[in-house]
């Protein structure tokens, strides 16, 4: 009998747990440890954030799903990993703080561990950033609900004749998820038009991207109209068409009531007044610690300084120009302990995909690599398959899911209406540019494309329902691709 413990119930952890349960025998146990007892389909939070969906349309309770599937659930936050057990017992375990009893700890033993804890939202890295400060977020369904309320208040003021300033983007030079903020700003603009108040709105995109359309993945190139066009042109066109202004290459230095301050790579110190701001935070790992058998701190053996977990990647420090696609991990196994894996946002990327810059004052303007739903789910599934094989006698991981060898399909909503809405449908292959295989653009242009239209919105709606169906582990769920 083997015990597999999954930390986290987001896209990656939930996918891993579901496949483990499907593939392992009933004598083996699968346990999910998570401080959240409900699943949130985060890509649809942008629609909650403009008031088009209720939170219960993007979430569902996990306990009944896990009970039906035969997955044990521990409602609590993992605090420390003890990969060698302790002096009394060499069985590895995770120390968990139960949500129902804050301050206490319970041991959850494991034979195999998947760290899929996702990110910690670091609003604290920029003074005044976030729902406890002066800006909004759509990172969680609760944040999105608050954003929707504030957005609605702005619309009411505009209906009374007031002019409103909107600032949307990222709240720090090292943020990731520019794609989610991009979806939010174009949906916000679409909604203002739908509500008949667009003429009273000034909308500005504030981003750490060196060029528009970078999305933390060094941008993309598409074949279109007889040209190979960069995604910067695609995004600039989309913004210009919608009357959205932009500030690129920026590190947001502070947010105060009604004003966002920034510094750009060329040293410009600027500020943007706002009535409503949605600025995403930078991420770090969740701050797990690791202790050896004697209780000595071995956190640095398992984790990078940014609190994400080290896996089978090449973490050697080298100049940006020397980074290679093969530096990226393939099996997601910890080099320190063969029975520990990290999946989804929890693994430490070996380097940035987008070229990092600095402002003259030394602030990093370096978009972090995105790890969106599709790769996160595929990594979770590959890790689950490897663990199943290792339980059955394999010497090591048998499945790989390198982001340098997989593509991603992404649909960015640009307005939610079944007849007048649009979305940007994009595919990239591979996610991590491979300039050895594809010297010119780093990606296969036959498999990298972008297009905007109503069909994209239909696909976005389809994916919303399909992935929530799959996550609920309804009949046939495993037939739906990641």
């Amino acid at each position, binding site marked *: 009998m083997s015990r597999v413990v999954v930390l986290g119930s987001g896209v990656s952890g939930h996918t891993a747990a579901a496949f483990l349960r499907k593939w392992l025998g009933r004598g083996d146990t699968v346990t999910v440890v998570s401080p959240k007892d409900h699943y949130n389909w985060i890509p649809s939070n942008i629609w909650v954030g403009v008031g088009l969906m209720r939170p219960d349309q993007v979430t569902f309770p996990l306990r009944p799903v896990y009970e039906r599937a035969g997955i044990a659930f521990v409602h609590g936050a993992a605090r420390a990993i003890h990969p060698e057990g302790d002096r009394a017992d060499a069985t590895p375990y995770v120390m968990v703080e139960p949500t129902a009893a804050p301050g206490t700890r319970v041991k959850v033993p494991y034979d195999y561990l998947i760290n899929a804890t996702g990110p910690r939202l670091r609003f604290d890295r920029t003074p005044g950033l976030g729902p406890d400060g002066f800006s909004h977020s759509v990172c969680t369904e609760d944040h999105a609900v608050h954003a929707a309320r504030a957005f609605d208040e702005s619309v009411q003021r505009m209906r009374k004749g007031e002019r409103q300033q909107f600032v949307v983007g990222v709240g720090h030079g090292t943020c990731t998820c520019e794609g989610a903020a991009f979806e939010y700003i174009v949906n916000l603009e679409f909604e203002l038009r739908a509500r008949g108040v667009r003429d009273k709105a000034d909308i500005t995109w504030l981003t750490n991207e060196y060029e528009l359309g970078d999305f933390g993945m060094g941008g993309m190139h598409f074949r279109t109209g007889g040209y190979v066009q960069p995604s910067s042109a695609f995004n600039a066109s989309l913004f*210009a068409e919608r009357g959205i202004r932009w500030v690129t290459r920026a590190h947001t230095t502070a947010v105060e009531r009604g004003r966002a301050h920034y510094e750009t790579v060329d040293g410009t110190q600027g500020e943007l007044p706002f009535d409503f701001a949605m600025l995403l935070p930078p991420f770090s790992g969740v701050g797990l610690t690791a202790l050896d058998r004697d209780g000595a701190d071995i956190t640095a053996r398992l984790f990078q300084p940014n609190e994400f977990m080290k896996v089978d990647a090449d973490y050697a420090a080298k100049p940006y120009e020397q980074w290679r696609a093969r530096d990226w991990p393939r099996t997601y196994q910890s080099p320190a302990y063969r029975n520990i894996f990290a999946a989804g946002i929890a693994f430490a990327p070996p380097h940035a995909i987008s070229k990092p810059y600095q402002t003259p004052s030394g602030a990093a303007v370096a978009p972090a690599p995105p790890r969106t739903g599709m790769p996160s789910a595929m990594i979770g599934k590959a890790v689950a398959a490897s663990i199943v094989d290792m339980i059955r006698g394999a010497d090591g991981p048998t499945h790989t899911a390198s982001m340098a*060898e997989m593509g991603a399909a992404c649909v960015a909503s640009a307005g939610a209406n079944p007849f007048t809405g649009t979305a940007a449908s994009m595919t990239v292959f591979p996610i991590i540019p491979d300039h050895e295989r594809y010297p010119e653009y780093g990606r296969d242009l036959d498999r990298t494309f972008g297009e905007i239209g*109503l*069909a994209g919105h239909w696909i976005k709606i389809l994916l919303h329902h399909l992935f929530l169906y799959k996550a609920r582990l309804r009949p046939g769920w495993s037939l739906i691709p990641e």
Partner: protein
Amino acid sequence: MPTPTPHVATPTRWTLFLRTFIPWQLWRFAMINLRMLGIIRSSHH
């Protein structure tokens, strides 16, 4: 960087029309789904 909108390509009326023209979008719906399925298939190892 300041917003250089005068230097940006913008869609023609025909392009805008096609973006929400249902018959064309039904065709694109099928084609984009096929493309995405191809990406998914080639990404699983």
